[in-house]
C-alpha cells in the first residue's frame, strides 16, 4: 500500500509551536501538589486578621454542571458575609478523585486544601492515614446545640469508635422505595398504602409483575455498591452488619442470612424481580419507563425522577420495607478538615463548614439536589416547609431517618464493602447458597481486618 505523504516538516512546525506555547503556561498552581503549597503566604500567616485567608473546598462533582454553579453561588454568599476570607470551591470529579487529591498532596509533603466533602464511610481510612484535624476545639466553641441539631443517624458515620466527632454531615442520603401509583391502581392495590413489610412487598410484587419480563414488581440494583441497599435488611431485623469497632463486621449472622435469603427468593423463587446483577444507573429509567413498578434507590434520585416522570403525582416514595419493622443505612458525604493545612486556613474552613451546615443552606441544598437536609431545624425553614407542602415526597426520607443506622465502614472500608457486595452478588445469581456466601465473606473480611489490631 502506498503511503500518501503528509508533510511531516510542516505538521511538526505548527504543532511544536502549539505545544511549546501550551507548555509555557503550566496548569493552575493548585495542580502541583508536590510543591510546598504557596510559599508566598507567610506574610499573611503572620497577620491573619488583617490579611485575606484563602480557603479551598474540594468538592466531588464534575465541573460546570448545575451543582457546581449552586456551589459557586454559596461560596460567593459566604465571602460576602465573611470579609477577610475568600472561599473557593474546586470541583474535583468524584469522591475517589477528591480523596486521592488529598492523599497525594499530603504524601508529597505539600499543604492540602483545608476542607473537603468526602464519603462519610471514608472516615476510618482518613483516620488510618492520619489526615484529619480533630474538631473538638471547634465543636466546644459551637456548643452542644450545634451537634445535637444534626439527625443522630447521620452522626453515626461521623464519629470514631470512641464517639469522637471528626466530620460534619453535608450531603447525606438514605435508600427509599419509589413506587408507581398508576400501576398500584391498575392491579387494585391502594396507592396510598405502599407495602410496609416483606409479606406485603411480596404480595404486591406478585400482583404487579407481568409475564415475560414486560414488567417487574420490584427492582433493586445490585452493581457498584450492592451492600448499601441490601444493608437495610439486616438493620430492619435489628442486627446491623457493622458496629462501633472499625475492625469488626458481622456478615455471617442469622439476620444477614434471613435478609439475603428473602432477597434471593424474590428473583429465584417468586420471579417478581429480574435475575442477575441489576445496574444502579439504569434502574430509575426502568422505573420511569414502567418496566419496574417498585424500585429501591437513593433519596438523591428524587429530584431527577420527579423531573422526568410523565406524571409526577404518580411517583410514590415510601420507607424500605423490612421483615416487620423498618431500617436503612445512611449514605453520602461529610465535610472534613485536614490537619496538614495551615492553621488560619483551618479556622476559616471551620467557618465555611458552619455556613454550609446552617439550617438555611441545608434546606436549600436539599431542595436543589434531593439530598436530605442534615439538620432537624432545616425542616423549620420556609424553604423546606414550602417544599414538603408542595412535594410531600421530600418529607419521606426525613421521616425514615428514625430507623436509620450506620453505613458499612471499617478499616480498608472499600475492600470490606466489596467483599460483602461480592457475597450478595454470588447469592443473587445462585453461584453460592446464601449461607456459604456469607460465611466466605466473613472469613475474607476477618482476614483483611486482622491486620488492624
Amino acid at each position: 500500500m502506498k503511503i500518501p505523504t503528509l508533510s511531516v516538516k510542516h505538521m511538526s512546525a505548527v504543532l511544536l509551536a502549539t505545544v511549546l506555547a501550551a507548555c509555557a503556561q503550566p496548569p493552575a498552581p493548585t495542580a502541583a501538589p508536590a510543591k510546598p503549597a504557596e510559599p508566598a503566604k507567610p506574610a499573611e500567616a503572620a497577620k491573619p486578621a488583617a490579611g485575606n485567608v484563602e480557603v479551598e473546598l474540594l468538592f466531588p462533582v464534575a465541573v460546570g454542571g448545575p451543582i457546581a454553579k449552586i456551589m459557586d453561588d454559596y461560596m460567593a454568599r459566604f465571602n460576602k458575609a465573611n470579609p477577610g476570607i475568600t472561599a473557593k470551591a474546586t470541583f474535583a470529579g468524584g469522591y475517589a478523585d477528591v480523596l486521592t487529591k488529598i492523599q497525594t498532596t499530603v504524601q508529597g509533603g505539600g499543604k492540602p486544601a483545608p476542607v473537603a466533602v468526602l464519603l462519610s464511610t471514608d472516615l476510618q481510612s482518613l483516620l488510618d492515614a492520619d489526615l484529619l484535624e480533630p474538631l473538638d476545639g471547634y465543636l466546644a466553641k459551637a456548643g452542644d446545640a450545634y451537634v445535637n441539631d444534626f439527625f443522630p443517624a447521620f452522626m453515626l458515620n461521623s464519629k470514631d469508635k470512641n464517639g469522637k466527632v471528626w466530620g460534619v454531615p453535608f450531603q447525606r442520603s438514605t435508600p427509599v422505595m419509589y413506587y408507581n401509583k398508576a400501576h398500584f391502581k391498575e392491579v387494585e392495590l391502594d396507592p396510598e398504602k405502599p407495602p410496609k413489610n416483606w409479606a406485603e412487598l411480596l404480595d404486591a410484587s406478585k400482583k404487579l409483575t407481568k409475564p415475560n419480563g414486560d414488567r417487574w414488581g420490584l427492582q433493586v440494583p445490585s452493581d457498584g455498591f450492592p451492600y448499601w441497599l441490601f444493608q437495610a435488611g439486616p438493620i430492619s431485623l435489628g442486627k446491623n452488619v457493622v458496629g462501633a469497632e472499625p475492625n469488626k463486621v458481622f456478615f455471617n449472622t442469622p439476620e444477614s442470612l434471613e435478609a439475603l435469603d428473602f432477597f434471593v427468593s424474590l428473583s429465584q423463587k417468586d420471579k417478581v424481580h429480574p435475575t442477575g446483577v441489576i445496574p444502579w444507573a439504569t434502574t430509575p429509567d426502568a422505573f420511569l419507563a414502567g418496566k419496574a413498578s417498585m424500585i429501591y434507590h437513593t433519596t438523591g434520585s428524587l429530584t431527577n425522577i420527579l423531573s422526568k416522570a410523565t406524571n409526577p403525582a404518580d411517583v410514590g416514595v415510601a420507607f424500605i420495607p423490612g421483615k416487620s419493622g423498618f431500617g436503612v443505612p445512611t449514605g453520602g458525604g461529610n465535610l472534613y478538615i485536614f490537619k496538614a493545612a495551615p492553621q488560619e486556613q483551618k479556622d476559616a474552613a471551620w467557618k465555611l463548614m458552619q455556613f454550609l451546615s446552617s439550617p438555611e443552606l441545608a434546606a436549600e441544598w436539599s431542595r436543589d439536589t434531593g439530598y436530605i437536609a442534615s439538620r432537624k431545624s432545616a425542616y423549620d425553614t420556609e424553604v423546606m416547609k414550602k417544599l414538603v407542602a408542595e412535594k410531600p415526597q421530600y418529607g419521606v426520607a426525613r421521616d425514615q431517618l428514625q430507623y436509620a443506622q450506620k453505613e458499612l465502614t471499617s478499616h480498608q472500608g472499600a475492600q470490606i464493602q466489596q467483599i460483602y457486595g461480592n457475597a450478595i452478588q454470588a447469592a443473587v445469581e445462585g453461584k453460592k447458597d446464601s449461607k456459604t456466601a456469607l460465611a466466605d465473606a466473613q472469613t475474607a473480611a476477618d482476614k483483611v481486618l486482622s491486620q488492624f489490631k
Partner: protein
Amino acid sequence: MRNKLTQSLNLIVLFGLGLLWAVPLLWSIALSFRPPNVPISIGSTWWGGSFSFASILKALDSAPFGTYYRNTIIVVFGILIVQIFTITLAGFVFARLKFPGRDALFLLFLLQLLVPIAILIIPNYATIRSLGLFNNLVAIMLPFWASAFGTFLMRQTFRTVPLDYEDAAKMDGANWWQTLWHVYIPPARPALAAFALVSLSSHWNDFLWPLVVTNSVDTRTLTVGLASFTQMSESGAEWSLIMAGTLLVVWPLLVLFLVFQRQFIASFVQSGLK
C-alpha cells in the same frame, strides 16, 4: 445465473458485515441527538420522538470539554514531537553506526517491547510522584518519550537507504547530522508520517495512565473526563448525555479517519509490518 446469485450474495454478506460493525457507533450518534430529559427506554430504539441538540449542549455545559481538548492535544503532540526526535536518532544509530556495546543497549529497547509501559503503572506512578510531576501534563507524556517500536520502525526504514548515498555525502564533507538530515530523513518521511498517525491515535486513547497521574480538571484528558462523566451521577445515568459526551470525545479522530481512511489504514499496516 449462478454467478449473479453468488455475486449478490457476496454483496449482501459484505454489506451486512459492515453494518454489523458500524451499528454501535451509528446508534450512539442517534442517541446523542435525543433530548436529555427523556428516558431512552421511551420511544423506539432508533428514534426518540424528536431531534435535539440539547444533549450535546448539556454535555458541553456539564464538563470542561475545552480544557480536555486542550490537554489531550498538548499531550498527544507533546509525546509525538519528542518521539520523532528520539526515534530518529536511535533508529539511525542502530541502522548505521557500529560501535562496541551497541547490541547490549539494543536489549534495553527489546525490553520495552516485551514489557509494555501500560503494565508498569504502579512503579511508574511512584516515579512520577517522586519527581514531583504528579498532576502535571508532563507526567502523562514522560514515559512515552522513548519508543522502542518507533526506533525499530526507523531502523528498518533507514536500512533501506543505499549506503552509496551516505558515502557520497561523506565525500562532500558532510558530518553525521548533515548526513542524517539530508540523506536519511527525506526518504523516511512516509514512515514518520505513518508513525505519527499511529502514535497520535493511540495516545489520544490512553486512559488508565492519565487517570492515575492526574487528579484535577486542569490536567485531565478527554478519555478521563469522559469516564468520570459516565460515573458522575449518583441518581442514575442520563444516557443521551453520556452518548453526547462520547461523541464529543471521538469526533475529532473519527472525522480525521473518515477523511484520510486510506492513509490511516496504510499507516497502521506499515508501522506494523516493518
